[in-house]
């Protein structure tokens, strides 16, 4: 991923827009925002050459808090918006971000196909295993017996979804986990993700203090994965299938070339196209 102009003098806070977040104090998403700004500063990105696209949810409010180009789209559709942007503007650094509901439930199909299409972008899913914005319903990553939502008395009784496994099976070129409880470590993962060509998926644990207060304990449960990132999908598969959701770090780095059609005209004048119709 190449960025034309760089801004070495920018500090993390220079990537913030100044708009005050609406998030609950204590929410993990603040740390994610911080980690993103740290990663951008570390990479000396020029804010005008970066775009961050999100869907709908607490976590998806993120773009407004950054000083880069942003798009706050509709629920579940951050990835296609980001895809269209990157494919037509390969010169930009493109990120997509959102929640577990946004990315894995309503946007689940796009997630699979974005992994498969392998456009050069980084997708951050802030997983709090709940729909924060709509008052705490179960999401695809919620445990089956979590019974605090009125919509699913007694729990969902449905097994959770394993986003990293699905990312690998669908063809994502970079798979990592980070945690908002460690914004500096998360910044490192984000830098690696943004530097890696193709579609990079970062599973970002980000506690919801309001609807999942027990997630405060995540900071004691996360730990660095005691392994180096593998380039072997078979090893990665085993690693991700036995993962307990709390190993942090880059877990898989593929070498598939990114999808990027060449945008170079081969005719000087569009009137050339008329020729196909002339009798």
């Amino acid at each position, binding site marked *: 991923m190449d960025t034309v102009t760089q801004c070495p003098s920018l500090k993390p806070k220079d990537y913030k827009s100044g708009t005050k977040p609406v998030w609950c104090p*204590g929410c993990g998403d603040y740390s994610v925002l911080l980690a993103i700004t740290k990663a951008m500063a570390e990479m000396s990105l020029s804010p005008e050459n970066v775009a961050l696209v999100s869907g*709908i949810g607490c976590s998806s409010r993120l773009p407004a808090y950054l000083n880069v180009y942003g798009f706050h789209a509709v*629920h579940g559709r951050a990835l296609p918006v980001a895809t269209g942007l990157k494919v037509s503007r390969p010169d930009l650094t493109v990120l997509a971000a959102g929640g577990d509901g946004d990315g894995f439930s309503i946007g689940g199909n796009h997630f699979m196909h974005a992994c498969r299409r392998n456009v050069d972008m980084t997708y951050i899913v802030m997983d709090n295993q709940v729909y924060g914005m709509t008052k705490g319903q179960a999401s695809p990553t919620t445990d089956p017996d979590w019974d605090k939502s009125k919509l699913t008395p007694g729990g969902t009784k449905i097994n959770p979804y394993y986003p990293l496994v699905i990312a690998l099976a669908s063809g994502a070129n970079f798979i990592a986990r980070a945690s908002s*409880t460690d914004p500096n470590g998360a910044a490192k993962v984000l830098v690696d993700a943004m530097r890696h060509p193709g579609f990079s998926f970062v599973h970002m644990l980000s506690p919801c203090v309001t609807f999942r207060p027990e997630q405060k304990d995540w900071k004691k449960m996360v730990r660095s994965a005691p392994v180096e990132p593998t380039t072997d999908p078979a090893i990665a598969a085993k690693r991700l299938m036995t993962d307990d959701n709390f190993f942090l770090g880059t877990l898989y780095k593929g070498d598939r070339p990114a999808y990027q059609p060449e945008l170079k005209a081969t005719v000087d004048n569009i009137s050339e196209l008329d020729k196909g119709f002339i009798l």
Partner: protein
Amino acid sequence: MNASNSLSKADLLARTLTMLSETVERYDLFADQMDVVNNPEAATLFRWLSEKQGSRTQVVKKLSEGLTLPHISPWDYDWDDAINTEVPGHSSAHYMMTPYHTLSLAIDVEQSAARLFSEIEQTAQTDETKKLAHGFAREASEFRDYLEHKRSEHPLPEKDWDEDYDPPQLLE
């Protein structure tokens, strides 16, 4: 930051500066958060803390004049929210937090800082860093003491201080 025995003066200053300015930013953020959730008391206290920390940052900046400070990537610091508390973690804020909580949070920060700098002082290789770390440690403990004194002016929070009689908002 684990006490590192090879810390040069520039290293120590660079790390301290980052630590302090992150703390300032965090206090500012907390103040903003408290504005947004309509908790003016906590907001005012956080602004005051930010100011105090800001003037300490200025002092360290002065000490660094003429030196070229190394760039240290975020992940090269050992502190983070999970383990260290020299910078208050995002998760330590609460929308109903009282002045007592606010000051306790800051006390914890200074306590950790004092401990860290004492460790650095003990393992430092040069007199210069030793002296510097000693000074930082003393400042942190003094500020901690001051904050403790200030906290004693506020009542202890009630048992159910975080009980909210209204459910959270349903948005979007």
